[in-house]
């Protein structure tokens, strides 16, 4: 009798121990894996709409921001939802569509090639993409001989940057801001979603089929229209804001000056004002909204204004190789 009791006791204790071990082993990593996001959500829950306006110091005081570097942790854990794409596309499909779209751009604007500038731009963009949530995506940068201030992130990691946008940068962090916005467009499949939208608007069968499966004639028309629309009007305001938010995360992950994109936008506005003869800007509201988005993201991450601006390298590897603008 005593022996039976002993074995029952031993059995139940072992079972208890096994459950405890599995709980400890399972919960420990899960708990800590979600620590940063939990901190953010607890913080957001407590402060509601004003969450983004809380300063780092106040956050530290409340014990919600563990240390001054938590903004990088938040940037790594930030999840940005990719654009809703109706059909499945393999990476090669995306890449093919991106290349075909790039051809449409090249048909309108000549490509500017430079043996020193191109590798440098590719290194900055690759570094950003390598630290994105699609680290295996291979990015390629091509410079267009245009004076537009928008950079485009085409499906599959192709980035087109006009000379005008490069001229509006004065340091590597500003260039990284500009390219991070384009990398974010690729990462979040914003242009691909736009392409699908264009196709669905024009052809009923595009709702059933992916863009890759469309008859060549139809796809040709859609790509042509999209390239024209993007080069004339740039990204949709809503998409631009999503990409701006993400670009702040990317800059932060890599350690660039967090306000690089904001500084680039300010310079772009100055350039546009110069062109407009000092008058008010027609798209001032759009710039203002983008700046506010960037500021809000920086505040959410409790990001300080410090970071690597690297003006020397940009002047050495980038700026000196840009051709003089046509008058």
């Amino acid at each position, binding site marked *: 009798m005593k022996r039976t009791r002993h074995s029952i006791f031993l059995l139940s204790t072992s079972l208890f121990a096994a459950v405890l071990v599995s709980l400890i082993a399972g919960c420990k*990593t899960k708990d*800590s894996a979600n620590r940063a996001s939990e901190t953010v959500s607890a913080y957001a829950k407590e402060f509601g709409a004003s969450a983004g306006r809380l300063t780092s110091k106040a956050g530290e005081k409340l014990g919600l921001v563990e240390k001054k570097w938590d903004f990088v942790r938040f940037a*790594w854990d930030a999840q940005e939802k990719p654009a809703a794409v109706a059909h499945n596309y393999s990476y090669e499909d995306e890449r093919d569509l991106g290349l075909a779209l790039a051809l449409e751009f090249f048909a309108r604007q000549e490509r500017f090639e430079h043996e020193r500038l191109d590798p440098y731009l*590719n290194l900055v963009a690759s570094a950003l993409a390598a630290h994105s949530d699609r680290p295996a995506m291979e990015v390629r940068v091509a410079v267009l001989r245009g004076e537009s201030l928008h950079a485009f992130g085409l499906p599959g990691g192709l980035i087109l940057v006009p000379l005008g946008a490069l001229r509006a940068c004065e340091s590597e962090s500003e260039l990284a801001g500009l390219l991070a916005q384009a990398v974010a467009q690729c990462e979040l499949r914003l242009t691909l979603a736009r392409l699908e939208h264009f196709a669905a608007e024009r052809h009923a069968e595009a709702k059933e089929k992916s863009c890759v499966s469309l008859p060549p004639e139809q796809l040709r028309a859609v790509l042509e229209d999209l390239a024209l629309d993007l080069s004339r009007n740039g990204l949709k305001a809503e998409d631009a804001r999503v990409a701006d938010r993400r670009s702040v995360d990317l800059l932060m992950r890599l350690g660039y000056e967090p306000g690089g994109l904001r500084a680039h936008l300010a310079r772009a506005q100055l350039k546009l004002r110069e062109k407009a003869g000092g008058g008010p800007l027609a798209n001032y509201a759009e710039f203002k909204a983008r700046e506010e988005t960037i500021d809000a993201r920086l505040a959410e991450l409790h990001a300080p204004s410090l970071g690597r601006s690297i003006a020397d390298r940009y002047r050495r590897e980038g700026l000196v190789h840009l051709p003089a603008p046509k008058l």
Partner: protein
Amino acid sequence: MPNRRWLTRLHTFRVPWLAMVLLVLAASWVAAEGAALYLRVRFAPVRSKPSLKEGETKHTISVGQKVEVLERSKDGEWVKVKWTEEKKAPEGKEDKEKKAETCEGWIHATLLNTKAPTTETAKTGVAAPEQSLLNRHAQMKKLDTRPLQTLLREPHTNDQLDRFLREGKLGVYREDWPALEGGVTK
């Protein structure tokens, strides 16, 4: 009294109890140390010492590589990891002679995550180059594909990208880079 009965029981079985507690502690320690993590950036240097200034780069691992945690540096910024790598067969020899090699080294904790990163999905069924969407499109519109030829070339190697980051003190090369562990326990 039920309390007293439990105490007596506890006294009788103190050895198994102690053994169980020790077992639980040992198992939880093993579970925490041996956790599997994934590389979340495209590639990363694995160092011989937990520092960028001391030691040397022993290996380079690529995105999604699963590693096992062996230990952590005192400041928690570096993690000693091990993983198995398929050793390439010497030239002229068949693939059958491929051997798995266990590698070890220190990696910056920021670059590891508990979740495997997104991988790019490959196409199912490969179309002949002349039938590819791009070529069809270019031929139909009589577009010049030359600007794409240089664009598609490999612009740089991983080593060049690593040097670029090091020169700019970016990423893990940032001197004041914080200890981030992708949420893994210190």
